[in-house]
């Protein structure tokens, strides 16, 4: 396959970026999108040019490191998939593909397609953990959790924190990410105890990071590699309102 690429090149956060045209001739349809970029980079290195920088790690769709806007869609045309799990068979021979980084004020561009997603980490640091002292590991059966509880907690915990929800949102809201983290811990007895503190802290951190509001367009779920439900956002709203209205400080 022959693929024409228009890739966003930007030296650092302060400089101006622009699209640069590249052509990759020897693309195999079974290559992943990142392997196609590797092929391009190999060519660029041989030519003595600076390779295109992009985030990646496991390349198995579970780490949440990769993520770029491909033809204006987070993680590309396939729904509910990561960039590394997108293969070139999703494109046609001779296609022109636009590749841009995820864009949001809270995700400053580091270089080219690489962005700084530390804002999501800081939301986790503000409350996405269990702080009650649990001592030594107790007998496993002393905390009964039903199969359904475990499953739905895991549905929320499946979020890999790639930031596609923010990139897909017209308001650059991190509500799906934060909602999923809050719901995951709220559904389990160990996490439930601190829900009120957690939800307040995490929502306030989300605000401080400069993410936008959620207007329930539900685009985030469609593009989310893990298909995290938008109902996690509603749950966050519910828990937040409850903690503000009903919990004595």
């Amino acid at each position: 396959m022959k693929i024409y690429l228009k890739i966003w090149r930007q030296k650092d956060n302060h400089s101006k970026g622009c699209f640069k045209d590249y052509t990759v001739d020897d693309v195999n349809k079974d290559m992943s999108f990142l392997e196609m970029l590797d092929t391009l980079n190999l060519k660029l290195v041989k030519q003595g040019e600076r390779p295109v920088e992009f985030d990646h790690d496991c390349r198995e769709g579970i780490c949440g490191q990769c993520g770029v806007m491909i033809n204006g869609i987070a993680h590309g045309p396939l729904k509910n998939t990561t960039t590394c799990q997108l293969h070139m068979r999703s494109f046609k021979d001779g296609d022109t593909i636009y590749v841009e980084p995820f864009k949001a004020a809270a995700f400053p561009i580091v270089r080219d397609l690489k962005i700084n997603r530390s804002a999501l980490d800081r939301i986790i640091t503000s409350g996405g953990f269990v702080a009650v002292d649990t001592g030594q590991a107790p007998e496993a059966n002393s905390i009964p959790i039903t199969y359904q509880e475990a499953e739905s907690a895991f549905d929320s915990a499946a979020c890999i924190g790639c930031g596609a929800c923010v990139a897909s949102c017209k308001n650059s809201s991190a509500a799906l990410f934060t909602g999923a983290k809050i719901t995951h811990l709220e559904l389990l007895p160990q996490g439930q105890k601190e829900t009120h503190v957690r939800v307040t802290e995490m929502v306030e951190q989300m605000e401080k990071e400069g993410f936008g509001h959620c207007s329930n367009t539900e685009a985030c779920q469609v593009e989310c590699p893990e298909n995290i439900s938008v109902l996690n956002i509603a749950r966050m709203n519910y828990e937040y309102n409850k903690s503000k209205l009903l919990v004595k400080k």
Partner: protein
Amino acid sequence: MMIYFKNALTRKNLMALTGLFLSFFLIIHLLGNLQLLLPEKEAQLQYNLYSHFLSGNIVIKLVSYVLYACILLHTLDAIYLGIKSKKANGPKLSRDRRSRASTWQSRNMMFLGIIIFLFLVIHFKDFWYHYKFGELPHDENGNKDLYTLVVNAFDSIWYVILYSVSFLALGFHLLHGVASAHRSLGVYHPFYSKLIRILGYLFSILITLGYLIIPIIIYIKH
């Protein structure tokens, strides 16, 4: 404390509560206005009596203040969140096809809201202001003749088109707004969430059709 007022979740709660109150008002307003479709003579007396009752009632007066407050708060909140969203978005995407993942109305609530707001300005000026502060002839029963004012206004096809476009904008606004408001307030149960969406669609369609037929029927009748 300040962060609580600036907080997007709180603003969305306010947006949802005012929106739901306005949606409730739409039902009452529509039911009242359906009197316009009665046979002409009966409609005139009945509608003028109804308007007179509304304008003289202290409870209605208090509710109307809540209504004005809701319209203002809903609008101010939209402006606040609109600015916040613009700030959060940062640099624009050069190629943007994100719209494939959501409905048109959910992405254009601000645009639809602006049409509705402009409509309200015209609507208030032509009827509400005229009735309250203008000079109107009286009907047989001595009530101000709002009916004739309304019917004459809808003589013009342009006026009917203006109203129809505004009602369609309202309909699309509700199509997303009603269900979204419940989400913002925290309805996370999958079953009720789905139920509210279906009922919200039904509500939007009925309200839109209800409002749409009034100017059209009046235009055809006269």
